[in-house]
């Protein structure tokens, strides 16, 4: 397993990132953690529907998205808001989508991020098609797709891996092995010793990294991206990490795991080791931390206001969002539905 920054903040070898870039990515991790906690709180207040928290996986998402070019495609799952934000998806749309407003699923122009996948696994295949079409158009873009350890049991994963390898496409398969798929532990999900080793069967490189180590994640993903961009085909990366929170806000993890296990992983917090690294280089102070947290809260509060302030999605919209042009049966159904509510 590739590790470059230990939980106690020691760098193994030369630091792969400048202090300046490390500070920027640390800042991003503080922002996404603030976002994540805010969303969990909003859900409790009934202002968001179900929410899938990613606390503990910040380094995996921030570190893997950081080396992407802005035009690279990203296809992620429900738990990957941090990676999506890194690739340009605005907070307010990430929030709007989670309030149940489908307009949140429409990326702004020049943001190459698809709406997140809810069924486990299907989206990985889209990354294959995105990379294939990029090659067809002679574009430099690659595609990265995010998924969990559980998703590797779906046929879709294996078919996507095989297709990408067969056609030598520029896809980065980024697995966040957060140890659980709802109640199913990673060890019961697959008998493969690592998820990374599944790459061998498809004829592509597979790398296992400490997913709570920003440096290792960044380094491995940057290499995979370079390989993809150079036309040398796909890579599978397994980021070993941990979901500190519940599967979603309607899950109760005490039904399937011990608090002591969670505590162990808290000690491997992805932010803390970067904080120590920076602090030892006089690049972190408590004041800066406080400022970051305040700025992050303000920015996210503002996004919540924007999302909640979007004018209500009228009932007619659900029909109009269906097709390019509204077909006759939906014209009728829209009229009937609106009549029923006196419109």
């Amino acid at each position: 397993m590739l590790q470059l920054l230990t939980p106690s903040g020691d760098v193994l070898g030369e630091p792969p990132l400048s202090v300046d870039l490390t500070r920027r990515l640390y800042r991003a991790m503080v922002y996404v953690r603030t976002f994540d906690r805010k969303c969990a709180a909003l859900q409790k207040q009934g202002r968001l529907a179900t929410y899938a928290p990613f606390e503990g996986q910040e380094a995996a998402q921030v570190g893997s998205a950081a080396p992407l070019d802005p035009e690279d495609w990203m296809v992620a799952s429900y738990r990957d808001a941090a990676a999506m934000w890194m690739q340009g998806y605005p907070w307010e749309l990430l929030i709007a989508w989670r309030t149940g407003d489908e307009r949140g699923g429409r990326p702004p122009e020049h943001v190459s991020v698809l709406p997140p996948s809810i069924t486990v696994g299907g989206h990985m295949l889209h990354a294959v098609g995105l990379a294939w079409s990029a090659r067809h158009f002679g574009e430099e873009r690659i595609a990265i797709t995010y998924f969990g350890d559980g998703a590797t049991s779906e046929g879709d994963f294996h078919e996507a891996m095989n297709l990408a390898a067969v056609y030598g496409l520029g896809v980065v398969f980024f697995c966040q092995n957060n140890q659980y798929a709802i109640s199913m532990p990673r060890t019961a999900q697959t008998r493969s010793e690592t998820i990374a080793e599944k790459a061998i069967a498809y004829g592509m490189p597979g790398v296992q990294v400490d997913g709570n180590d920003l440096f290792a994640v960044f380094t491995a993903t940057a290499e995979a991206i370079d390989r993809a961009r150079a036309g040398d085909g796909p890579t599978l990366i397994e980021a070993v990490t941990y979901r500190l929170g519940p599967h979603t806000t309607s899950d109760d993890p005490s039904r399937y795991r011990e608090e002591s296990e969670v505590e162990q992983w808290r000690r491997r917090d992805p932010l803390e080791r970067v904080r120590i690294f920076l602090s030892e280089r006089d690049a972190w102070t408590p004041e800066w931390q406080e400022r970051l947290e305040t700025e992050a809260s303000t920015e996210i509060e503002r996004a919540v206001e924007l999302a909640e302030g979007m004018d209500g999605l009228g009932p007619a919209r659900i029909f109009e969002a269906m097709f390019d042009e509204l077909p006759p049966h939906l014209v009728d159904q829209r009229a009937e539905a609106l009549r029923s509510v006196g419109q």
Partner: protein
Amino acid sequence: MTTTTERKLTTQKAIAEAIAQEMEADDSVFVMGEDVGVYGGIFGATEGLLDRFGPDRVMDTPISETGFIGAGIGAAINGMRPIVELMFVDFFGVCMDQIYNNMAKIHYFSGGNVKVPMVLTTACGGGYSDAGQHSQTLWGMFAHLPGMKVVVPSNPYDAKGLMISAIRDDNPVVYMFHKGVLGLGWMTPNPRAIGPVPEEPYTVPIGKAAVAREGSDVTVVTVGLTVHRALDAAETLADKGISAEVIDLRSLVPLDREAIVESVKKTHRLLVVDEDYRSFGMTGEVVATAVEGAFDYLDAPPLRVAVPDVPIPYSRPLEQFVLPDADKIVAGVETLMAG
């Protein structure tokens, strides 16, 4: 005077009890699916079974729906009676080949010789803001495809009896439970989700509808959670002097066409209510049944209340806008009575 206290259970507990009793009685019955063991099923349909029967008979599976449904078929062919849970019916997409090209057709393709005595259980339905890939009912689609029986209980008594029938049936049975009828603590409280359930095993026949409420002015045919909505509507209608008969289909395959035709012959009016998409679904089939069997008795063209042909919206108010409810049923009946 003797008083008997009837034992009451939620629908969820009734399902789990039915499975437990059949597992007790027949060791070829086993359960598999995602989170059915330690978790007891995301909706509690397999609650307590792992502790009682152990991991060989209550198998938590990897997220491989094609894999474990296909394996269930194999085990069924070799004489076991698998109960295989597809966590949400919405996920059928990843495993439909096993369901409709294999589970449903092997009997036919073997000239009626190879039996697949398997129960495919699955949670369906919306109303709790879980968006368009977690809120569909889709039973019309399963009922459309030949080779599977399809049952949809609406209350604890039927849930237990239909589960036992499904397990004992020698054919593949798709057992679809609406999340809203289960009586789960975290859903909107539903008094109709709890009711008397005998402790001993019993069966409810597959293919027989139930008259959930007798009436004489109009027939409301429905299934699943909308049975509760229709019963609520019938109370409102009674106050307005309209007597509505509510038919709970309970099974879509086989469909109890006789019950539909008989009721329509009595009331002369038909409203079909369905939490499935409107087009090409159960509502059309029931209307056709009434037209074929009781055309001369109809005093008004049948009406339907169903989900329009759009995905279930994530937004709470928009979701409520598309789902059938008691008000829409009352309005539908009033339109029929005026016609």
